[in-house]
């Protein structure tokens, strides 16, 4: 049996206390222990971006982070983006601009896009391309993903929040 450690953090706005094995990664904790399956395992070695979450506001490959390192932090997963008022500006843009095909990479791309928009609401297309470099998508050829994030920039300029 592996050694476990009690940790606490905020997950999608909710205070969370949990005991996790010290060798567990954050992605396994989120998917298998906390049963939030929206965050995807694509490769398990930080190459595909499908497991992207926000940790204290920064986009992170959760497969590369130890679960115990979540202690005291604020985590946001794909399940934490929509509000009772509905899906976020970027989530809606992904739908309206055809950025989703099989959808397996989509949660990671939406999280990465959300991070980029919050960092810099005035993103250029070049910033977007560079910003999603670490997220692999096999279906769309990225074009519509880039258009969706650019459309969200435009929406935010008009006054919607990221």
């Amino acid at each position, binding site marked *: 049996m592996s050694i476990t450690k009690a940790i606490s953090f905020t997950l999608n706005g909710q205070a969370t206390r949990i005991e996790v094995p010290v060798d567990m990664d954050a992605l396994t904790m989120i998917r298998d222990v906390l049963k939030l399956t929206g965050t995807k395992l694509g490769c398990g070695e930080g190459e595909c971006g499908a497991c992207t979450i926000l940790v204290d506001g920064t986009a992170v490959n959760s497969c590369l982070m130890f679960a115990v390192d979540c202690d005291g932090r604020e985590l946001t997963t*794909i399940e934490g983006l929509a509000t009772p008022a509905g899906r976020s500006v970027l989530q809606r843009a*992904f739908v309206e601009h055809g950025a989703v095909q099989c*959808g397996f990479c989509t949660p990671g791309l939406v999280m990465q896009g959300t991070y980029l928009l919050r960092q810099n609401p005035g993103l250029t297309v070049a910033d977007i391309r560079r910003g999603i470099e670490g997220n692999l998508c096999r279906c769309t050829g990225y074009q519509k993903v880039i258009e969706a994030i650019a459309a969200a920039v435009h929406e935010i300029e008009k006054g919607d929040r990221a």
Partner: protein
Amino acid sequence: MTVIPKETLIGRRIPKLDAPAKTTGETRYINDLALPGMLHGKILRTDRVHARIVRIDTSAARALPGVHAVITAADTPGVPLGHGRDNPPLKGDRVRTIRDEIAAVAADTEAIAAEALRLIRVEYEDLPAVFSVHEALRPGAPVLHDRHPDNIPFTFDYSHGDLAAGEQASDVVIEDTFKLHYVTHCCMGVSGVIATFDTTGQLTIYSQTQIPFLYKRDIAPVIGVPPDRIRVIQPPLGGGFGSKLDIYPFEPICVFLARVTQRPVRILFTREEEFIASPTRQPVEFTLRSGVKKDGTLMFRDARTLHDNGGYTSWGATTPFVMMQTISSLYRVPHCRYHTTVVYTNNPYAGSFRGYGNLQATFAVESHMDRLAEAVGMDPLALRLKNAQAPGETTPQGMHFITCGLRDCLQTAAERSDFVKKHATNRAGQTGPIRRGIGIASLVHVGGGANIYRTDGCGTILKLDDFAQATVLTGASEIGQGSETVIAQFVAEELGLPLTSIQVVNNDTEITPWDVGVHASRTTFIAGNSALRAARKARTKLLAAAGQQLGADPATLDLRGGHVVDATSGEARLEIGKLIRSLHFAGKHEVVMTTEYYEPPSVMQDREFKGNVSATYAFGTQAIELEVDTETGVVRIQKVTAAHDVGRVINRLGIEGQIEGGVVMGIGYATTEDLMVSEGRVLNPCFRDYKLVTAPEVPEIDTTFLETLDPHGPAGAKGVGEAPAIPTAVAIANALYNATGVRFRELPFTPEKVLRRLREAAEGKP
């Protein structure tokens, strides 16, 4: 009076119906499903390329706490699977590739299952191995399967005309050998399956298959369960691209584990396993000889190809079916011969992959069109236009092009990219390390199914409820390509209902009617036609009932915006929901439910591979502009101008996505992706070393749709799922020639390979 104007959904930008749930993480892929009591299965794969299994000792694995079952071939019926029926799910006596499955474990957790695999001891006796088709064809080469002592499980031969006459009539004859490499699908969701038996012995498989109905038939003998006791449920798929068209060993293995444990079992691959143990695109050595007259008339084409079949036979072996169509029929060629030898080796084996052999065939044919043009002093566009097929032609292979936008595609792509001028200017001579090039290439591909079984049909059941909600049960699978949205569009259009009133059910063989499967770019055409016809039947029924109630001729009525309206004025006369309720309650006791089985007007090919195998064909041309750094070998794709004959655009948003995704997949095939196989082993089973194209590398893509309105297509549409990936790599090869004057005959164009080829050419190798 409420007037509802006539509107159409066809050709509009319709967001995919399944997209909202995919942006919120609500969509549950197989990776996200857990059944109560579910165990985790893992497969032990051999580390030998060719060996006899002397002994397998599973005792330590069985003794590990948390392990529920350990199985080997001895615990299974041993019935082989796959297209060649040469691949037992668990190998008992012999392994032939490093992916070979030799034992499997079901345990409480994945970690325990992995630990148990490490405890299994296997004793081997190594056998001589063979890693190239040429070695495997030599007399005395190691034999892979006793049934085929020559290592040749299949050959394919096609011909028309008189090759010798064609060669004699040619003013210029050229010959080249092209080498097309291994790439793999890289679905973002890895392979997985869940199998569970109920107490009566009914088996439910949660499968990623692209062929749910044939799957039941094909897996039944392998697992010893009759097909009528198998239910296939298809959770949303994390990418398909043809990779799930065959049954692969992990699926029956999961069923065996579920049977022996009497618990649900899930097997999920790791990414490394996905690279090593899922199918590849068919690697090919392609020798092509072609001749033209001085005026550019193509006279003959003679193709000989060698397919590395790997250790077992999956669909990759049958890609010649598609290859020969491009060789015989993309351009008019009066004399033609095609021969393929499929050869067993101890390498990985290929399955089907978007384009199905056509990327490889088009690479050879379109490289040659450029070389022939140069040889007779024509520009590449002019030579292609001179030989391009036109509407109404039936090719010597029997393919009937009722509609054919090839010439328009060529001209549109050339005009929009300023091809002729740029091509001539680039060739005029460039100095400095960075060279610009432009290349062009076209394609033909089936666009109305491929009649390779006794039927190429698809069933639909359409039912309307009393609130005018339509439920469409279709046999056609959604694999991310957007088929359910297109099907909903057709139904909504016919029934005058909003898209939000259409529910498409497409994931359960116990509920949905039969379909061949999602392959051959057939779903929009065949499932679309099926849904459209079912909806037309329901429309006729509704209009007849409305006519009776309103005392009007049904021909004067129309369905719009959820209402029966006067067709001329658009005046709303009756709510459709109310009409349906009246059918239930007003003494008629009727439901509005229709069925359709759509069979396309195509035929199976005869023994000579002749016949109109598809109801329609898709055409397209891509012009690609690039820069190549001749000092580093780095190729930068700058712009893709794509013109595709799609019949008719149904969902503009969806079809743009298909073209863009296909083009980028083609760019990856040409420039970044390379599954490196050395002595049977995959050297780069991870995304760090197997490079997919990433967002910063994606060029501008200018797409034009040519609408040829196919008379058999639903609303005129053709299938285009595969088409955009097909001509990209060879357009890049042609652009590289335009930039450097060096012909590239071997994929991929990674910097080291480009540099090597440039040096080789500088040393005088043509």
